[in-house]
Every structure is written in C-alpha cells, then in structure tokens.
C-alpha cells in the first residue's frame, strides 16, 4: 500500500478511511477493567528517539502517537495525528494535515511546533540509531498551524512508512524542555520517567524490573466501535516475568490476562486449554544463520565460507523442515527470501534452498572441499532455540563432511565479536521496524551500513540497486529492483532458516488485542469481555 501511494505521487487520504483496520468487534464492547500482561523483560528507556531495544519499541505506541499509524497487517499506513498526506509530483516534498483538536495526555494541545520539534529531534544524526529513517528529510516547516511540510533532499519511497515508525512519535516540546538536565540526553532520561504523549495510555507508575502501570489517556483522539473515545480498557499493567514457566502459570492461574513470548514447545498444550486463547500473530521475524565471507578470518586462516559454492552447499544440506519441526514445534515456515513474507516487496515461494544433500556434496567437491572442513558458530548461551538450531545443523552438515563447532557465548560477547568480524558463523533473528523492505535490506546486504551484517559480503550490483530503490517512486520499478536484489542475495552470506509468528497466550475473554507484524503491542482496541 505504501508504495502505491507514493507512485501515484499525489494522493490525499481523508481522516477515518484507514480506521477500518482497527480491531473493532461488531457487537457491544465492554468498557473498563485493567488488563494485566506478562512480559519476558522490562522496558529500558522508553524514549522514541534514543531507545535501542524491542522491549521499548513494542510498547511505545501505547504512550506516544505518530502522524501516521501502521496498519494492522504491518504493510501500510493509516491516518494518525495527521489526517491526510500529499506527496508532491516531483517527490521532493510531503505535506501533512494535522488532526483538529488533539491533545497530549496532560490536556495541552498538540501544536505544529510540537510536530516540527519532534521530527527535528528524530532526524538529528546525533540522536540515536534510528535517524536513518528520516535521512531524506531536509527541512520540516510549519506552513500554517494545521499544515506541516517536509522538504526532501531526494525522492523517498519509504518516507510515508517512515512517519509511522516509533522514532517519529510526537512529543510535547515545552514539557520536554522543562525537564531538569543540562543536555537533551539528560532531559530525555528525566522525561522518560514520566512521559507525556498522546497515545491511548499514560504511564502512571513504573517499578523497574517489576511492573509498569499504564492508565487510559482521557484525551485520546480515536473513537471506538461504540462511538466513544478509545481505549476501552481503564489501564494495562505489565508484569515482568522472565521465567517462561512462571509467566504461563500466571495466566493459567488467572492472575494475568495474557503473556508474551510463549515457548513454541508449549503452544500445542496451551491450544488445548479451553480457558485460553493461544494466539500466533503473523510477524516479520526471520531466523537465520549468518556467515563471515571474508577470504581470511581474523586469525589469518583461509576462510572456506568465502566461496559461494560452499555456502550454497551448506544451505542445500540444511533441512529447514526438520529444524522447523525441532525448534518451533512445527509453528514456523521456511524463509523464502532474506526478508519475511510479511515484508512489502518480498518475492519467492518455498525455501530459498530446497534440501538436497547430494547437490551439497557435489558442490563441495566442485569447490575442492570434498574432504570437508571445520568452522565454528557463535550461539547465545542458554538460548534453547539457538542451541537446537546449531545442534541440528551440526548433524546435517556432518553428513556432507563438514564439522561445525558450537561456541556458546553471552550476548555482549557475541555482538562484540560479530561487529569486529571475529566469527565464522552466528545465528540471529530480525524483525522489521518499518513497513518497507529498505531497513532489513540495508542491514543485510547494503555494504555501507554494516557490511551486510558484518559478513564482509559485497555485491556492487546489489549496492547500486539499493541506492536506486531508495529514490524510486515507481512501484513497479522498485518492486523489480527488490526482486533482483532478492535473487542476488541467494549468493549472500546467510543460511535462511524460518519465519515464525509472535506466540501470545490470552484469556478467552480478552478481545481485540493485537501484536502487528512489526512487533508493536496494540492495546487501544482491547477489551475484557466476560
């Protein structure tokens, strides 16, 4: 949807047309009640711009609003604090109309000044790691109190989707600047303790590592199915419960209304419980292996994985279905590209490399490795899924003569070695933050960002296609560029494994809760029914 909007170049959407996607039960909705939700980890720093982690990103939209909102399928956008947007015919500017009468949770009006200030802070290259989303914005101008004009440095097919990303959430300038602290970062830290936004909920209290209490924002602009303002709930309480078994027990005992990150091994059992709704929300999550493809390793040794034939052989020898059965208990599906099938402009059906051990052996022989070779894989210590994948790959690759050593390390060690290129292989997963394929593509394949996931993989054709696609407003042409990039990436540095949904267990009375494919937990349309 996003790109269609932009290729048309001029398109105005009026308020409300996009709201059909909001999970709205047809019958009467029960208002009131506080939903308790078990999370596997606490938030860290709920600042839209300076955060780095999904534990913040995925709940931020309950506190803050964006000009545009992601749709429920995570593939497009719908009106948010802006009711309409127009992309100029030359693609060099975007005009946004602000919604009338919107307020922050403290009752103060949301002004064009707040919008400009928030976007300027979000796009400042000195602020955090998300400003790449706003890279194309050259200036944010207030045309009149209800109209914002973004002047772009170049046409940007993803800027509309970008405006629905958490880093562009609108914050109250005056309240933020009134915070104690000498620098903007210090002010951000103080503000994050008592955030004021315009999302459906307000942070009421936060006891770190224990619980976070959100209460309904009486000034929220969106209307529910009953014609009264959302949210239906009086509040949401997040309880931090890192232990999977405890989190599940608490839902089973009735102390929680829902819990996230249910281990796949428990999904079947919980599906059988009539009091529970074991939900599997479609996601953009992909789980993959990632090779270092530089000709020499840091140790100075030759690296067989620099040979594309060797990489293809290892991919052919990996039985994706078996891994899906072992690790996800059948819940996952094989990856058909480096990006998830829920990502816009994804191409491909079925596994990227169908299992074929004979072909693998032939390829290894061609590459001169018929006697096999040995390398190691970094695995997150104690992570049952990663250990399961690595052990399965170890056996599958042993069958074609390749020996895999499993090296269990903690996250900081893994990231450190990964970033220094001090690895042969590692396992990882990824979820998109934006309803566009550009984010994953830049990290996975475009050299200047992080050298194709620190793999050292480089394709000049891929790089120039990516650069062109970042300015291509013609949907068909851009889709073509992405199709070609996905084709080239078959020779890339990864072992595509599987896509998997977000496993969430809810009491059957919980209606209208949604985790969209980008990961955001949406409580605005949630209600607690009898």
């Amino acid at each position, binding site marked *: 949807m996003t790109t269609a909007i932009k290729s048309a170049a001029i398109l105005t959407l009026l308020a409300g047309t996009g709201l059909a996607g909001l999970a709205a039960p047809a019958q009467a909705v029960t208002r009131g009640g506080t939903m308790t939700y078990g999370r596997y980890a606490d938030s860290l720093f709920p600042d839209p711009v300076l955060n780095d982690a999904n534990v913040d990103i995925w709940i931020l939209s309950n506190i803050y609003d964006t000009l545009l909102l992601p749709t429920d399928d995570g593939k497009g956008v719908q009106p948010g604090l802006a009711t309409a947007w127009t992309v100029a015919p030359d693609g060099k500017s975007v005009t946004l109309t602000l919604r009338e009468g919107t307020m922050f949770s403290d009752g103060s009006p949301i002004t064009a000044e707040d919008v400009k200030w928030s976007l300027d802070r979000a796009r400042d290259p*000195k602020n955090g790691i998300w400003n790449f989303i706003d890279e194309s914005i050259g200036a944010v101008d207030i045309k009149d109190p209800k109209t914002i004009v973004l002047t772009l440095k170049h046409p940007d097919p993803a800027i509309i989707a970008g405006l629905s990303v958490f880093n562009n959430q609108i914050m109250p300038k005056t309240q933020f600047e009134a915070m104690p602290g000498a620098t903007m970062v210090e002010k951000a830290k103080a503000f994050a303790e008592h955030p004021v936004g315009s999302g459906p909920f307000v942070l009421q209290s936060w*006891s770190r*590592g*224990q619980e976070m209490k959100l209460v309904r924002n009486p000034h929220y602009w969106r209307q529910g199915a009953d014609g009264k303002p959302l949210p239906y709930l009086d509040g949401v309480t997040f309880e931090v419960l*890192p232990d999977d078994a*405890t989190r599940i027990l*608490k839902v089973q005992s009735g102390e929680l209304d829902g819990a996230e990150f249910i281990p796949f091994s428990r999904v079947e059992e919980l599906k059988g419980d009539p009091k529970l709704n074991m939900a599997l929300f479609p996601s953009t999550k992909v789980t993959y292996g990632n090779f270092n493809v530089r000709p020499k390793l840091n140790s100075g040794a030759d690296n067989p994985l620099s040979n594309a034939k060797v990489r293809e052989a290892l991919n052919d020898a990996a039985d994706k279905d078996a891994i899906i059965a072992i690790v996800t208990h059948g819940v996952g599906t094989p990856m058909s590209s480096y990006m998830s099938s829920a990502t816009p402009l994804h191409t491909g059906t079925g596994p990227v490399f169908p299992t074929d051990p004979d072909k693998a052996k032939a390829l290894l022989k061609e590459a001169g490795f018929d006697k096999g070779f040995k390398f190691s894989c970094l695995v997150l210590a104690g992570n049952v899924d990663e250990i399961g994948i690595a052990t399965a790959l170890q056996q599958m690759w042993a069958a074609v003569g390749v020996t895999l050593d499993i090296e269990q390390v903690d996250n*900081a060690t893994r*990231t450190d070695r990964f970033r220094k290129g001090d690895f042969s292989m590692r396992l990882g997963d990824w979820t998109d933050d934006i309803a566009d394929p550009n984010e994953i593509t830049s990290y996975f394949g475009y050299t200047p960002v*992080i050298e194709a996931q620190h793999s050292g993989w480089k394709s000049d054709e891929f790089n120039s296609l990516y650069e062109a696609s970042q300015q291509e407003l013609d949907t068909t042409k851009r889709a073509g560029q992405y199709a070609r990039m996905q084709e080239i990436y078959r020779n890339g540095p990864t072992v595509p494994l599987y896509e998997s949904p977000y496993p969430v267990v809810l009491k059957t009375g919980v209606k209208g809760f949604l985790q969209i494919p980008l990961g955001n937990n949406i409580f605005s349309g949630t209600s607690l029914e009898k």
Partner: protein
Amino acid sequence: MPDAGYVLRRLLQMVPTLTFILVVTFVLVRLLPGDPLSAIAGDRVTDAQVAQARAAYGLDQPVLVQFGLYVKRVITGDLGRSLIAQVPVWTLVGQRLPPTLLLTGMATGIAVALAVPLAFISALRRGRASDLVIRGAFQIGLSMPVFYIGLVLLTVFSAQLRWFPVGGYGDGWGDRVYHLFLPALTLGVSLAAVLMRNLRSAIIDVLGAEYVDFARAKGLAPRIVLTRHVLRNALISTVALLGPTVGTLLGGAVITEAVFAIPGVGRLMIDSIYGRDYPVIQGLSLTLALVVSLVFLLTDLLQAALDPRTAG
C-alpha cells in the same frame, strides 16, 4: 557482651574488604569480552554510532582515568548511573535490594523455625524412626535443585490450590510477605537442611558433655537443662554457620527470584552482567559485600553473646 570498641574495630575491618571488592569488580567487568555498547546497541549500530556513544558514557577514556573518577565518586557516596536503565545506581539498589533482603530474612526465619525443633527431636531420638524420617526428608530437600522445588510448590500451591499467588512481589508489607512465602519456603528448606544437620550433631555432642551431666545431677528440670545448657551451647556453631550461609543465600536468591518473578538484586545482577552495565555491577557488588559483611558482624555478635570467649 562485646563492647563498642569491638564493633568499631570490626566496622573498620570492612574498609579493606570493600576496597578489595571495588578494585576486583572494576577490573573483572572490564576483562569480560564486549563492553556496555555491544550489549546496549545490539547488532544494528554503525561503528560511528558506537564511538559516539562510547564517548558519551566516558568509556573512551583510559581505564586508569575511569577508575580514578569512579573512586572519587564512590567516596562521595555516588555509585554512578546505570548505562542501560539510565537511572542512578542507588535508585536501582533502593528498588531491588528490599525484596531480596525480605526474601533472605524470611527464608532464614523459616529455616531456623524448621531446623531448631526438628534438630532437637532428631538428636534426642537418635537412631529411632522419627530421627530417620526427619533426616531423610531433609536429605531429599537438600538434593533437589532449588528451581525444581520452586516450580513444584508453584504448581501445587499456586496454580492448583490457589493458596498463594504465582510469584510477584505485591504491594504493602502484608501482601509482600504473602507473595514471598513460597519462595522463602523454597530457599528456607534447603538452608534448614544444612542447619538441621549441624545443629543435630552439636546437640548430640553437648548432650554427652560433662556439664550437662552435672546440670542433670543437680536436679534441674530436663526442660531447663535443654534450653539453658544444651541449646545455648549447641547453637554456637550453628550461628557461626548462619553467617556464611546467609551470604550464599543472597547469591542463591538469583534462581528463586527468576522462578518466582521477584524483582530483587539477583536478577538485577544477572541482567547487568549480560548488559555489561559496569556501574550497576560495581555498585551492586559493593552493596552486597557491605550487606554480607554486616551479616557476618551480626552473627559474630550473636555468637559472642552466646559464648563470650569468641569476642576477641
């Protein structure tokens, strides 16, 4: 009874201990592979962003300079700020230490309440069926992993019978004690097993001592002989054991805190180590060292009260 001079001397002895902990944790956290940035920033950041953040956190300065700054701050009572949570370390300690202390305190209370009477019964009925049953039961308690006891208790008493909440910490003191009962029982059972065994053999030793025979010969009532002479003397070695055990308990609370979702320092420590949150690891180590030193001091004072010869 030990005098104020003794207490003061003991408090002064803590200074070198705490200095040692400060230096060792400062060095050890920096020997871990990776740094706070690799934990905070994840896979996606670019090298330039890492360098920028490293400078912002002062991690680009030479280690000795960082150490100097840290010591200067600690002396003034400032433990710094968490790199991950972005709040002062003291705030985190203030939020997370009370649950752990309450849990440890309750576990110790439960352990003592279980161990003392049962050790008596066991010792007085040595070799008989009741002795064997008590020792057998504690042996099982001791050999079961803490997380397993915890999960069994949770499944039976919380999920099935609904007598207790499934983990959490609660609001208000009464509610907190209620929430912490099962986890304290989990920890208390294994601690009780250790104490019970020690106390039982101490009682058996004391029962054979001449002064007990003498007390009995004087015609003292058996109850008075047991409480005034046997228990008091037998407790000396058990109290000595209590100090180090409570220290271990503080460390061992990590698993219990995870299973029962208690927002204590155990979990904070683990998260901070994974996150390479240097200021929190350092500040928490110092605080815990201080707490353990104080517990040692308390048990020593208690021991001295029971046996004045030990106060030196």
